[in-house]
Every structure is written in structure tokens, then in C-alpha cells.
């Protein structure tokens, strides 16, 4: 369904991705884990061509492209198959909630206006934001903005939705509700690649967990395997810092 092969990417002398390959089946939810600077966000951005990879191939469905010499036409074609949810929401600030959703449908996809509005209203309802239909992003809370961001990605009916730390910019108390919306997306059977630090979410929703560090995939597997029976020492180290464990001492 989606296959990334031997992707490499450097920013100047800093090699961020050193030969990463990843395969995602249809309907699968893959969670990318790893410390900051491990390259997981860059990997996600390379899949959507927001970052230009130095090497590697990408296959989505039937289409295979070489990432470093992709034409603008192929870029748009493949982008049409992906949705992207940004860490800081990335809503168009000059558009209302509903316009944020219809913009891609009408201008990008050339769907008739009435149909696009109907579709947008449906997804707004689905993420529980119908009453904020005509609000500008500046008048919405972070959680509400991210709901629109997710609705915008879902409305495009993409083959895969890429989530780039969708809850990192949110207040702690809002994280749960957004994760709930993302889980709803997963329940729809949409293929997803999610970069997140929310372990409980990963355990609950992911079909596969991929642990990255230093620009390579260190370990991948079922969440229960990776979390509780990690094969690699580096994974164990990382998990020991974030998975809740028995405290070493009591006060």
C-alpha cells in the first residue's frame, strides 16, 4: 500500500535520515516513536514532499516515484492521496473553519462547490465542530483547531493520513479528546502514520510501532512486543524513560 525504500535526507552536514525503509499495509495504523532529532517528523514530511529527500523511492498504491527527482505533476498526484495533520494545526488563517475544509476540495480537487460544502459539513459534524462552522481559526482553541485540521485531512478521502505530533502543541487536558478523534479516524479503517509521544495511545490504536533513533529504524513490531519485549537495548533505554514503571522509591 505505502512503501518507502532507502530514504536518505541531510540538512547540510547533519544526516537526519540514514537509509530508512518502511512498509504500511492498507488500513494499518503505524506509530512512529523516538527521541527528538531521531528523524521521524522528517520522514513523515518527506512522504508528503514537504521536505525533499536526497534519495529513496516512495510507493503509494500503484504509483512509485523517486523522491529526489520527482516532477511537480507527480508531487501533486501523490499528495492527492495523502492528508497531513500538522503539529501547530496549520489552518488557513484567512479562512473560516468550513472554508479550511472546502478549499482543498474545491480548488485542489475541483469538486463542485455545493458538493464540497455538503462534504465539509458532514466531516465538521463528525468531529463535533458544526457549531463553529463560520469561525476563523484565531477564534478557536487549540483543540478545536486541531479537530478542524483532522476534519480537513479526512474530507479529502486520502489513502493515508499523516499525523505530525498532532497533540504536542495542546494543553494537557485537551490531548485526550484529540486522541479520541484520531482514534475515530483509525476506526474508519483509514491508513495512518502517526508521529506521537503518547504511549498509551500507541498501545491502544497502533497496529505497528516503529522506533527510530539517530536516523534509522531501530526496531518495529506490534505495540505489545516493542513495548514489553523490546529486542534492542536502545529501545529499552528509551521506553524506560517514558513508560510508567514502578517507582524506584516512595516518599
Amino acid at each position, binding site marked *: 500500500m505505502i512503501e518507502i525504500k532507502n530514504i536518505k535526507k541531510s540538512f547540510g552536514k547533519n544526516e537526519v535520515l540514514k537509509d530508512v525503509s518502511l512498509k504500511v499495509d492498507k488500513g494499518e495504523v503505524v506509530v512512529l516513536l523516538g527521541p527528538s532529532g531521531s528523524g521521524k517528523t522528517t520522514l513523515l514530511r518527506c512522504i*508528503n*514532499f*514537504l521536505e525533499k529527500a536526497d534519495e529513496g523511492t516512495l510507493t503509494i498504491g500503484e504509483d512509485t516515484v523517486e523522491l529526489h527527482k520527482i516532477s*511537480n505533476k507527480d508531487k*501533486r498526484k501523490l*499528495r*492527492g492521496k*495523502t*492528508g*497531513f495533520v*500538522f503539529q*501547530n494545526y*496549520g*489552518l*488557513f*488563517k*484567512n*479562512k473560516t473553519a468550513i472554508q479550511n475544509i472546502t*478549499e*482543498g476540495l474545491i*480548488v*485542489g*480537487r475541483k469538486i463542485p462547490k455545493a458538493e464540497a460544502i455538503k462534504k465539509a459539513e458532514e466531516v465538521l459534524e463528525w468531529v463535533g465542530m458544526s457549531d463553529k462552522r463560520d469561525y*476563523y*481559526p*484565531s*477564534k478557536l482553541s487549540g483543540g478545536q483547531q486541531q479537530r478542524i485540521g483532522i476534519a*480537513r*485531512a479526512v474530507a*479529502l478521502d486520502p489513502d493515508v493520513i499523516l499525523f505530525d505530533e498532532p497533540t504536542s502543541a495542546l494543553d494537557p487536558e485537551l490531548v485526550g479528546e484529540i486522541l479520541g478523534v484520531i482514534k475515530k479516524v483509525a476506526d474508519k479503517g483509514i491508513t495512518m502514520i502517526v508521529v506521537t509521544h503518547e504511549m498509551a495511545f500507541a498501545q491502544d490504536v497502533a497496529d505497528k510501532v516503529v522506533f527510530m533513533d539517530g536516523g534509522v529504524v531501530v526496531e518495529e513490531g506490534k505495540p505489545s512486543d516493542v513495548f514489553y519485549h523490546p529486542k534492542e537495548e536502545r529501545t529499552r533505554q528509551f521506553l524506560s524513560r517514558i513508560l510508567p514503571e514502578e517507582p524506584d522509591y516512595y516518599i
Partner: protein
Amino acid sequence: MEFEYGNFKVSFKYGMEYLHVTAKITFIALFFGVVIGLVVAVVRHYKIPVISQILTVFVTLYQGLPVMVALLIYNLLFSFYIADIIRILHLNVQVRDVDNIVVAYFTLSLAAITSISETFRGAFVSVEKTQYEAGHAVGLSKLQTLRRIIIPQMIPVAIPGLINNMVGTIKGTSLVMTIGVMEVMNASLIPCSRTYSFLEGYVAAALIYWTFTLVLETIARVFEKRTKCYRENITN
């Protein structure tokens, strides 16, 4: 030094008669300034190879050239080569019929283009990177993203700077008297050569410029206020 109110009134009347020339130079310069200035800003912002470097060098150098000096140079070249230009382009006009006000249009437009392009460029920087990325992510082309997402967000930010450019351009028009174009400044001084009432002439011109600027600025401020809601939407 005495201030003869009668002479002042005569100067004022003469000046007002040529306000339309000053206005015309102003609007032509601002029109090209905004349209071409936007294109220059886009090219430089997107770092379009070669053209962007050329424009950067040009804008930087041209910003250092005083309008007065530019006017005198272009006027000299104009009067020297106008006969050739008419001949080469097979224009059906006589050399003596050609008004060198076109030099004024050209010089002030060029000055407006360079300064307004810088205003727009600053406003471009105010739009976050994510806005471009979000545009691409929902399937908009580069041009669609620019037109539908980026420019609408950057215009409200640019307006205060543009008002500043407008005022600068109005003031700049007074320099065209040096090449003999009859406009407010020049016209206000017509009676002075007879009456030696130069102070009255200058004050009359000042009053006309001041009023003209004030009127345009007020209109622009109303427009700025109207777009305030957009600015609030995009800056929060």
C-alpha cells in the same frame, strides 16, 4: 519678510489648477508600484533563480539613488534620445509635441516599485511556513497557495507600510519641477517670478500637498480599519 495674503491666494489658485497633474503622477506611480512591486516581491520571496538575484542587486542599488538625481539623468537621456526613439518605433509624433512628463511617470514609478516591493517582501515574511505547507498538503498548486492563502494574509500586514509608501510618493512628485513639468510645486511659483513673493508660493504649495496627503491618508486609514478584522484573524 512680509507675508502678502493676496499673493498667497494667487499662488494657491495656480497650484490647485495643476493638482490633477500631481495626482496623476502619484496614482500612476502607485499603480505600477503595487502591481510590479508585488511581482518583484514574489520573485525575490520565492528565490526564483537568476531573476531574483538580479532584482536583489537592482533594488539595493536603486534604493541608494535619490529621486532627484534619477529624474535629471533620465530627463537628459530622454531629451537626447527622444528623436531616435520616435524614429525607431515609427511613432507618428513630433519631437516638440512630446511632453517630458513621461520621465516623471517613469522615475517615480521605478522609485515606488523598489520601495513598495520591500514593503511586500516584509509582509511575506510575516506569513508562517506552515501556511504554505498546509496549502500544498490539501492539494493546492504553488500559484493557488500564493493567490488564495499567502497574499490574502500578507496584504493586511502590508497596508500600514503601503500608506507610508503612498505618502512618500506624493512628496516625491514635487521633485519633478526640476525637469520643468508643470505640477503643484511649479505652478504655485508661477506668480512669484513676477511678484517676488516666493514665501507665499512655497507656503501655498505646502498647503496643497498637506491637504492632498491628508485626504488620501484618511481614505487609506478607513481602508486599513476595514481590514482590521482580517489582521486580527491572521495575527493571532
